[in-house]
């Protein structure tokens, strides 16, 4: 019988949490501190001037809607000081409108959503400017094909109206309310087209070259009884975290179609970013593809390479694709040298966020939850856990496409995942999300997409109205 030594020797990296940059290029570690102290990085050019909160006319809901309006207008204690117009420097009004209690039927999502729609537009048509919807509803299961959430999202998105759904369950609870008001305001700002912050630290890309980080998501969607389709989308970010665009593609459900779809998506997004946003033509573009889900097959690899080759031929720019697969794991790690006490003063021994361990060639563990440095309201830095219980690291697999000469090091690609975890618009206190923004919205987008795919069996890219196409309407 062999005897184990009890240890495994592995190579590890400790990556620092990147700083964010706010108004006036001011850096800060915390979103809260950065926004309160300096303000958002970039304001939207055209934005809705009225936020309409629509709620069912029931006791409980009414009070919650009023409390949300009051908090957005005037702030809420230290949790959201100053209010929306001051923090985000936008001239916005807040209005309340209710729908009849008996027309709020959770199990009839279509007609209930239509009621929200009717009341919203009744009020909004009397205004000269565009409006923004905040819909207060009960929490509904995310996996449900037809739910009030997806119906509302679908109806309003198709009309080019940005919307935010909030739940009675979250906002009726005082403890959840106080932590949710600032993130709600942040999401409104983002969906209005504002850029609250960007990454201060950047990936190590050689001068004269550019990089794009592309999140690819694929969903299998059932359309009625017999028809099944693949719906794919690609989200494109610059290395500084600036979102550029989203593109969709749909194909009949057949594995043979997948490689074509991936190729089309990559070609379309890279080409559009180059034509719309590139001020100077780069010598070379590193396209880092973040991907979560099934393995990339050999045929898909071939098509990814072909897409890059076509861009090179058409635009005379060398394009190097990197495929970075991101998965959950069940690893649990304990760092006995890092007490990292929680708010009760109990030691958690969580590993540092940013710790990356090379398990084998091209396979890395990345701790995006654990012990993290945060910036308190007064600006001081301390460390604390950013997760409950025993969080697991992500598994990052770097897929090397045959025949390509890679120039970015693996660890730079792992870093791209950590950096995209920093682009977090749902919390102002947690400095880093568990999942990168590039793959985080895959599932939610799939649900909304399925509504578009069913009711408008056409090019989804053409369905999203121009008014909101340039905003992160889906976060």
């Amino acid at each position, binding site marked *: 019988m062999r005897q184990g030594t009890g240890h495994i*020797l592995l190579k590890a990296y*400790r990556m620092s949490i990147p700083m964010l940059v706010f108004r006036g290029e001011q850096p800060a570690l915390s979103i809260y501190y950065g926004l309160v102290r300096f303000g958002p990085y970039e304001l939207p050019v055209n934005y809705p001037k009225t936020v309409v909160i629509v709620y069912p006319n029931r006791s409980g809901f009414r009070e919650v809607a009023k409390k949300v309006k009051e908090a957005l207008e005037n702030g809420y204690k230290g949790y959201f000081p100053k209010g929306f117009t001051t923090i985000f420097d936008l001239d916005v009004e807040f209005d309340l409108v209710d729908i009849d209690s008996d027309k709020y039927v959770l199990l009839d999502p279509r007609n209930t959503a239509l009621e929200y729609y009717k009341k919203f537009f009744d009020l909004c048509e009397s205004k000269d400017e565009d409006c923004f919807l905040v819909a207060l509803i009960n929490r509904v299961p995310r996996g449900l094909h037809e739910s009030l959430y997806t119906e509302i999202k679908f109806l309003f998105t198709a009309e080019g109206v940005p919307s935010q759904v909030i739940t009675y369950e979250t906002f009726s609870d005082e403890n959840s309310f106080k932590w949710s008001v600032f993130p709600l305001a942040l999401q409104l700002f983002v969906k209005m087209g504002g850029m609250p912050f960007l990454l201060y630290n950047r990936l190590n890309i050689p001068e004269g070259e550019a990089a794009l980080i592309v999140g690819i998501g694929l969903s299998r969607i059932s359309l009625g009884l017999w028809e099944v389709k693949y719906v794919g989308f690609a989200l494109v970010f610059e290395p500084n975290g600036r979102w550029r665009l989203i593109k969709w593609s749909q194909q009949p459900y057949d594995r043979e179609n997948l490689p074509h779809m991936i190729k089309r998506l990559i070609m379309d997004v890279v080409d559009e970013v180059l034509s719309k946003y590139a001020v100077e033509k780069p010598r070379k573009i590193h396209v880092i593809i973040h991907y979560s889900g099934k393995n990339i097959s050999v045929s898909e690899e071939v098509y990814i390479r072909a897409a890059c080759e076509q861009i090179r031929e058409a635009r005379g720019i060398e394009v190097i694709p990197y495929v970075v697969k991101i998965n959950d794991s069940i690893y*649990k790690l304990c760092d006995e040298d890092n007490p990292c006490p929680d708010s009760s003063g109990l030691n958690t021994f969580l590993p540092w966020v940013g710790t990356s361990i090379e398990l084998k060639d091209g396979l890395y563990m990345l701790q995006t939850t654990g012990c993290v440095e945060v910036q308190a309201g007064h600006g001081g830095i301390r460390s604390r856990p950013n997760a409950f219980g025993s969080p697991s690291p992500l598994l990052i697999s770097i897929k090397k496409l045959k025949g390509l000469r890679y120039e970015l090091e693996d660890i730079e690609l792992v870093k791209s995942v950590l950096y995209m975890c920093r682009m977090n618009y749902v919390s102002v206190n947690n400095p880093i999300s568990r999942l990168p923004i590039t793959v985080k919205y895959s599932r939610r987008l799939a649900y909304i997409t399925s509504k578009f795919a069913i009711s408008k069996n056409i090019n989804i890219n053409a369905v999203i109205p121009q008014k909101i196409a340039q905003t992160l309407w889906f976060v």
Partner: protein
Amino acid sequence: MSGTSSLIVNLFRILPSEDTVRVYYIESSDMESINLCVHTLRDAGCIAAPQYSEYLGLPPGIYFVCENPKVLKELNIEYTDKRIESCSYIMKYLVLNAIVKKVNELEARRLLYLPEGRGFAFSQVICCDRGVIMYSRPHGLFVLRPCLILRVEHYYVEGENMLFLLADLRFKRFNLLTLSKLIEVLEKKGFEWTEIRNMLCGHYYTCRIEGRRQACMLKDIIKEQSHIEAIVMTRSGQKRLLADSIWLNPHPKHTRDFIRDVLGENLDEVWMQQRKYGSVRPKVKIEMVREYIKKLLIENGVFPLRISNVEYSLDMRPQKLLLVSSDEL
């Protein structure tokens, strides 16, 4: 991080009794034929694993072991004997499949509990204690069980192949909220049939259709002489199902209120207990994992695990990852 640091991890080393293991091998590099052959061998009761390309010196093909060699004659397939390192990469799949086989046998003997439809997928297996940590009161509609999630991992470090059991522990809540159970409780509480029907139609459900679970909405309930059926709306249209194949989704607030206020079930105790177990930090968690491996896998005889000529035993010490680095990026 500079120099060397260490982390304790929920990995437990799997130690073989011999350096090499005798397996059967079928040469192939075509993915579809490999998959087809693996399925055929598994259906015949063998433990089989695919390797699609050469890795660490092992050629592509199918690696397998069969307790009953007669099966191979019946299958009429050509194979060869092969001796490979007992901790080589392909063995991670054979060891996991051997664990799955044993766990299934233990479930059949009612020594372990496997969650329906979620037992074995994505190279991992979930097995739960038959013992229940807690029942909700008074109807016992929810139970809390400790479950181990198991994977086998292969590491190749400094020229040595190693196998590890990667194990996590979750305290899972299982509910017995079938439509028939709900009707039984409501009838006992003295509700009229029309009231019951109206009350139950206002919630979300999960339906089992052709062995698969999917979200559904309840449209109507029909009481037949010997059984109860329901009309449900699923993503593939309207269906008529037995009330035993429909589960209430207890997550929405109005449904939790219904369970608490109308059915009279106390949910808070089970929820709080589950949250308490979920809140433990890694040091305690890894120790708990170790305890449950001992209880569910060692005491029930999953380990030591025999594959062909090799006995695999488990080193119960959680491993330490010694991390070597000098750079802070």
